[in-house]
């Protein structure tokens, strides 16, 4: 979607955490990226490296924790897997689906020194 903006957001959180928790180097970053979040993982990796350069997370390893997309099918009245936000229910084929999971974009944890 706009991975450069998101990578800037990640750096901001790292810098805030560095102030609050008193660490000086970040060697690895775990991001939780939902399958339906609109984030392109390859683009994120590219932007991450560019944005972290010259920061306390310069050269940090990026680990992506992908969370699966899920939706509530109004026809079946149950939670089913979804691979796209306009996906159809794998049980009944309906598009009457409300996304319930997989939209996460979170900084999970950092490995720091």
């Amino acid at each position, binding site marked *: 979607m706009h991975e450069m903006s998101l990578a800037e957001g990640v750096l901001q959180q790292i810098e805030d955490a560095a102030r609050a928790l008193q660490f*000086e180097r970040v060697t690895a970053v775990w991001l939780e990226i939902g399958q339906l979040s609109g984030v392109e993982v390859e683009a994120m990796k590219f*932007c991450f490296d560019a944005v972290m350069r*010259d920061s306390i997370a310069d050269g940090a390893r990026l680990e992506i924790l992908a969370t699966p997309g899920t939706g509530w099918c109004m026809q079946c009245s149950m939670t089913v897997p979804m691979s796209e936000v306009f996906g159809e229910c794998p049980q009944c084929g309906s*598009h009457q689906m409300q996304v319930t999971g997989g939209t996460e*974009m979170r900084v*999970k944890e950092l490995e720091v020194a």
Partner: protein
Amino acid sequence: MCTTCGCGSGEVKIDGDDHHHGHEHVHADGTRHSHDHAHDADEGHDHAHDHAPGHRYAPVHSHASLAHSHAPGLGAKRMVQIEQDILAKNNAYAAQNRQRLAERGIFTLNLVSSPGSGKTTLLCKTIQMLKGKASVAVIEGDQQTSQDAERIRATGAPAIQINTGKGCHLDAHMVGHAMEKLALADASLLMIENVGNLVCPAAFDLGEAHKVVILSVTEGEDKPIKYPDMFRAATLMLLNKCDLLPYLNFKVDAAIEFARRVNPGIEVIQLSATSGQGMDDWLAWIERGSALAAEPTAVAAEARAGVR
């Protein structure tokens, strides 16, 4: 911008004012400093630090050697839990805007679409038709020029232009500043015309009550499934330029079906800002929202009166 957005921090202008923000760096040796910077899109966000004489930290600043080394002696590694949304900062500003707007009963809409869908024409028409009924103010977002704000001001409504420079969307922080500059009336209507872009504005909450997505019938009817994030984020889809339908192959039913595939709850109004058809439905939709938004103010006013 200054917080979450990477697309052109030093470039944002709110009606001519430079809106510069610095950011703070914590370096490997523990020193901190802040600086402003602007950059071109093609440079990416990788920027060189000028540590020429005059830099406060120059003597102790072993940026190149320390920061890039993973040598032992830097201390034991440990894990730190963050568990925070990447857009947390923007969302915090948005929550602040939303609270300020709610306290004053201001109904706020974030209008999003591709460039050329007729947002500004629709806004002008809406303001003209609301004249004497509601007080309207507008925040205009564009990469460059204040032409749109001027078009709005010509209708008599106060408008403020935000130029995002290289940025592709408005964020809650810019909008918060713009709100301060606009003299917003209590229980009024605030319309935010976002940058013409069906991608990035979807993720950035500005503090609005609703996102309203405008799709014109001169575009493809499959836009809702090509750009699903935006149509999923919107409460209402306005199908604009419907006066042109006789000349086009646009399939209205298909467009609505695509939109509902992405967002089963989305409301749809077919209209034309040029011919005026459907405008009454749109105004009625706004009126219902405004009445709901203004309610707390009325209650609060009564409460204040009761105390006296």
